[in-house]
């Protein structure tokens, strides 16, 4: 029983089915105590600067909407906003493509390799992704340029294709894999019954398929939409300097022109960015609240990560089987290309990597030597790893009690709902939104750029998502067990009982935080610096002279990607299970 697969991701506000817990009012203060550390940190680091930003957007300058009017008059701001909206429109397209990709051979088992390869880009930082695609489409030595000669991929117009492909590469695989896991979970018996009763295809889709996929679809949509609203590194890494203006987005504009816009206007633009992500996230939250199907047998979840083995009795013609193999194979090949090109480029001497594509000679370890030559990479690898580990540990210390309090603390339902909604908005908060006020405070405390406060900022940004993830898992623990322990702590603390039964969720949260901190560029750029030491900043420096730094740059990218990739692949089963399952409650 203890090893039952717990749902470990749940964004929907959980509604207690049992009688109201008001009688246990003593648990209220206990829940508040458990919530307090997490609330204090997020309140100080995220909420307070957020409030300052919102107030300043209206107050600074003259007239309540003065700053917003000024933004509307600024053509470059309008341009950035329109581009950000384009990304938001693109996100559902990626999700639909993921659904389509998950459909062929839907009742067959999906190979582990295919799943791993398709989902791997999630572990790759957006900075590395941007660099990989710039390398692929570079004008002289780009692989794609060599294949489709004569096209200036990174130029005006085409750059959108490159950025779109990079974004697709990063997210499409995950969407497809998660959809597939949930397609395998579909109530095929129900579908068979519907068919037997003569329901048409449309009716089948409306009555069975769509409701079954809606929860996971909504979650995927939130994840991809939020990624779209937070596009930043991709623009800076993949687009050459002169082109960046054309593909400017709100996040980049805010970072670059904040000082010139002035306090009020940059605050107003930050609020616009916040509105984008908040609306998206809250809409997703609303979508996830619709529950279906009501009661699902627990044992089906056991086979999730490997697809749906029960359905192999279905006879496929040899041709179709080969078609599926080819389809899977093609997807795998396409998906590994960017990372393979990075790897092959890094295995050339810097001179060879600068002068020609990876298919020409000049193999050697020179690029790795160059990457490590000035000592920066090595020292930042250490400091980033320490920061990621400390942040993950601290995050668990703060988020586990908070999530427990929100799940089993017996808090009034409206309070829980409000906190979950707030956590959802904070989970998707782009760091640029609060950079000015938070930076000013850190500056006044003489902490800007130092290593320790940077960890706290990372943890604060991680807490909301961690609480959402943990809540889903904690809720799956048997209510009887928790109540029994709560009433009779002599047999052991209820919190401890919950934790021991939810260790995969804790692991997932830790892995997420390690990967997020490790891959972060924005927070390091805004609040850190090289003193704090972050691997992505070291690599970001190289982008300035992209062509002649191609070799060391690729070596940086490979070194940076190794750790998160291994971590995610090693723990992928739990991550995937959580994403595909927990949302359906």
């Amino acid at each position, binding site marked *: 029983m203890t090893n039952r697969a717990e749902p470990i991701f749940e964004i929907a506000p959980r509604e207690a089915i049992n009688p109201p817990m008001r009688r246990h009012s003593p648990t209220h203060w206990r829940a508040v105590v458990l919530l307090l550390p997490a609330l204090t940190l997020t309140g100080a680091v995220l909420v307070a600067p957020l409030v300052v930003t919102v107030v300043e957007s209206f107050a600074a300058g003259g007239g309540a909407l003065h700053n917003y009017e000024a933004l509307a008059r600024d053509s470059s701001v309008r341009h950035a906003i329109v581009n950000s909206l384009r990304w938001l429109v693109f996100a559902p397209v990626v999700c639909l493509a993921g659904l389509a990709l998950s459909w062929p051979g839907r009742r067959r088992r999906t190979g582990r390799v295919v799943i791993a390869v398709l989902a791997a880009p999630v572990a790759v930082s957006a900075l590395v992704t941007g660099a990989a695609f710039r390398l692929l489409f570079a*004008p*002289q030595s780009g692989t794609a340029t060599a294949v489709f000669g004569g096209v*200036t991929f*990174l*130029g*005006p117009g085409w750059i959108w294709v490159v950025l779109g492909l990079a974004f697709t590469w990063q997210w499409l695989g995950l969407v497809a894999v998660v959809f597939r896991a949930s397609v395998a979970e579909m109530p095929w018996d129900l579908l068979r019954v519907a068919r037997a009763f003569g329901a048409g295809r449309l009716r089948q889709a409306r009555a069975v398929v769509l409701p079954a996929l809606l929860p996971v679809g909504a979650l995927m949509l939130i994840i991809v939409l939020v990624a779209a609203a937070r596009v930043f590194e991709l623009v800076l890494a993949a687009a*050459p*300097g*002169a*082109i*960046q*203006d054309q593909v*400017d987005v709100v996040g980049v504009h*805010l*970072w*670059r*022109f*904040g*000082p*010139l816009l002035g306090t009020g206007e*940059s605050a107003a633009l930050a609020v616009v960015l916040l509105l984008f992500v908040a609306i998206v996230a809250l809409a997703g939250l609303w979508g996830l609240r619709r529950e279906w199907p009501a009661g699902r047998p627990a044992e089906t979840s056991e086979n999730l990560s490997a697809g749906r083995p029960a359905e192999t009795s279905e006879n496929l013609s040899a041709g179709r089987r080969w078609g599926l193999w080819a389809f899977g194979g093609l997807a795998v090949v396409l998906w590994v290309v960017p990372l393979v090109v990075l790897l092959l480029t890094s295995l050339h001497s*810097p*001179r060879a990597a*600068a*002068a020609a594509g990876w298919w020409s000679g000049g193999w050697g370890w020179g690029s790795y030597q160059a990457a490590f*030559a*000035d*000592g*920066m990479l090595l*020292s930042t690898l250490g400091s980033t790893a320490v920061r990621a580990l400390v942040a993950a540990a601290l995050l668990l210390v703060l988020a586990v009690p908070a999530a427990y309090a929100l799940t089993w603390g017996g808090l009034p339902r409206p309070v829980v709902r409000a906190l979950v909604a707030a956590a959802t908005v904070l989970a998707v908060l782009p760091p*640029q939104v609060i*950079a*000015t006020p*938070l*930076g*000013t405070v850190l*500056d006044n405390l*003489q902490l*800007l*750029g*130092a290593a320790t406060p940077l960890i706290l900022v990372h943890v604060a940004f991680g807490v909301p998502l961690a609480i959402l993830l943990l809540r889903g898992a904690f809720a799956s623990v048997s209510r009887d067990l928790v109540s029994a322990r709560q009433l009779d702590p002599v047999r052991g603390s209820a919190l401890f009982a919950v934790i021991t039964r939810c260790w995969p969720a804790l692991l997932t949260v830790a892995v997420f935080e390690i990967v997020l901190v490790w891959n972060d560029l924005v927070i390091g*750029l*805004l*609040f*850190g*610096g*090289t*003193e704090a030491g972050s691997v992505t900043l070291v690599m970001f*420096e*190289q982008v*300035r*002279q*992209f*062509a*002649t*730094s191609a070799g060391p740059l690729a070596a940086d990218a490979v070194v940076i990607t190794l750790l998160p990739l291994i971590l995610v692949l090693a723990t992928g089963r739990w991550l995937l299970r959580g994403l595909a399952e927990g949302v359906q409650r």
Partner: protein
Amino acid sequence: MAITRRTALKALALPCLAGLGTAGCASDSIVRVAVVWSGWELSQFVRVMNAFSERYGYGYSILSMGDDTTAFLANEVTADAQPDVALVPQPGLVRSSAPRLADVGWPRPDAAAWRSVLLSGAGPGGQYGVWFKAAYESMVWHRDDLPLPAAGWDWDTWTAWCRDEARAGRPPLAVGAADGWVLAGWFANVLLSIDPAVYRSLVSGYATGRKAGTGPGWDNGSVREALTRLADLWRVTGMFPGGPERALVTQFDESVLEVFQYRQAAMVVGSDFFWPIITQSTSFPPGRVRWFPFPSRPPEKAPIVVAGDAAVLFKRPSESPVGLALIDWLASAKAARIWAGAGGFLSINDQVTKEDYPYPAAMRPADLIANVQQGSPDGGPATFDVADELGGSLGGGDGEGTWKIFTDFFTEVAVHRSAVDGAIDAVISALDNGVSGA
């Protein structure tokens, strides 16, 4: 976000990195230096600092200011983040930051053109910095197989030859238009040949005491003439390998490769710091690299656009001997020779001679040295690059200020082939609307 930039600038120390020669942190024997370099250039500077460490017995730590030195010097920074010495590429910024800087005196009698740009105009006159690294940005680089006219090239014969080559399907020019400063450098060279006086009054505004929003506007005949010359050349079909669209995605280092590695273009306009790119990233024999000065139209003088990094010392409540020692070291010929030997570095110290540089005779190192020491075409104060002189919203950065203005101009005239007059009006209006200042 004021913070983003300041952050990047403020506290980017490499604390006590192994291999960087630091001898322990938080000690009076440590000097903190803020620089703008990264990558190979930073590794060269580290060599210079290692030699300092050995010679004087002081430790050091290096802070990287990133692109934005302005915020770094203009704002009061916390004591922890305050460097002892900063290497600043904008002379105007040094002058306007004078109240916070220590008068370091002038250790040598040479290069008057360079000295005068660091003198504080207002208040008690003093010498608020010494030059460590200089750059000469009025060069046209090419391979030795380029047929040169016996009399050398002026603007008209040069552009005529370029047009002929373009028409014949052999792109004559590589240009790293993806880097806005490359295009701004073209403009600086052409405007400086046409009218050094206007260049001084508009670009080197500090030299004449002009402040943002005052004095003459950008709309004058010389500026229009300079932009017209550029537009006429840039919009010629076949001028750049792969066309102007590809030029827009080509960075300066790649434009060097286009000439010396891929041989897709005959020449590239640029600076002395192209040398290490040629020697490190191409297989072209260094002995066959050539250059000539950026052409002008007689009787105009050949332009001399320069850049440089001045070492400044921040005022302290108690004078720090470490900082002064470092200033002395950075101004010395010994320090200069360490980096000069690797190339991509020019010194205005006249004890650094052509033997100290890696350049073969064909590179005419003596001319490089003479030009950079002269510092300006007319004997006046050194004429700095546009983006280094104009601060504020006209300063540089991808998609920002002058970089963006000239990128837009290039896009309009070369890629979109819009009417030249309209594109020129757009540049002038953008420059007039920009807020210049440190």
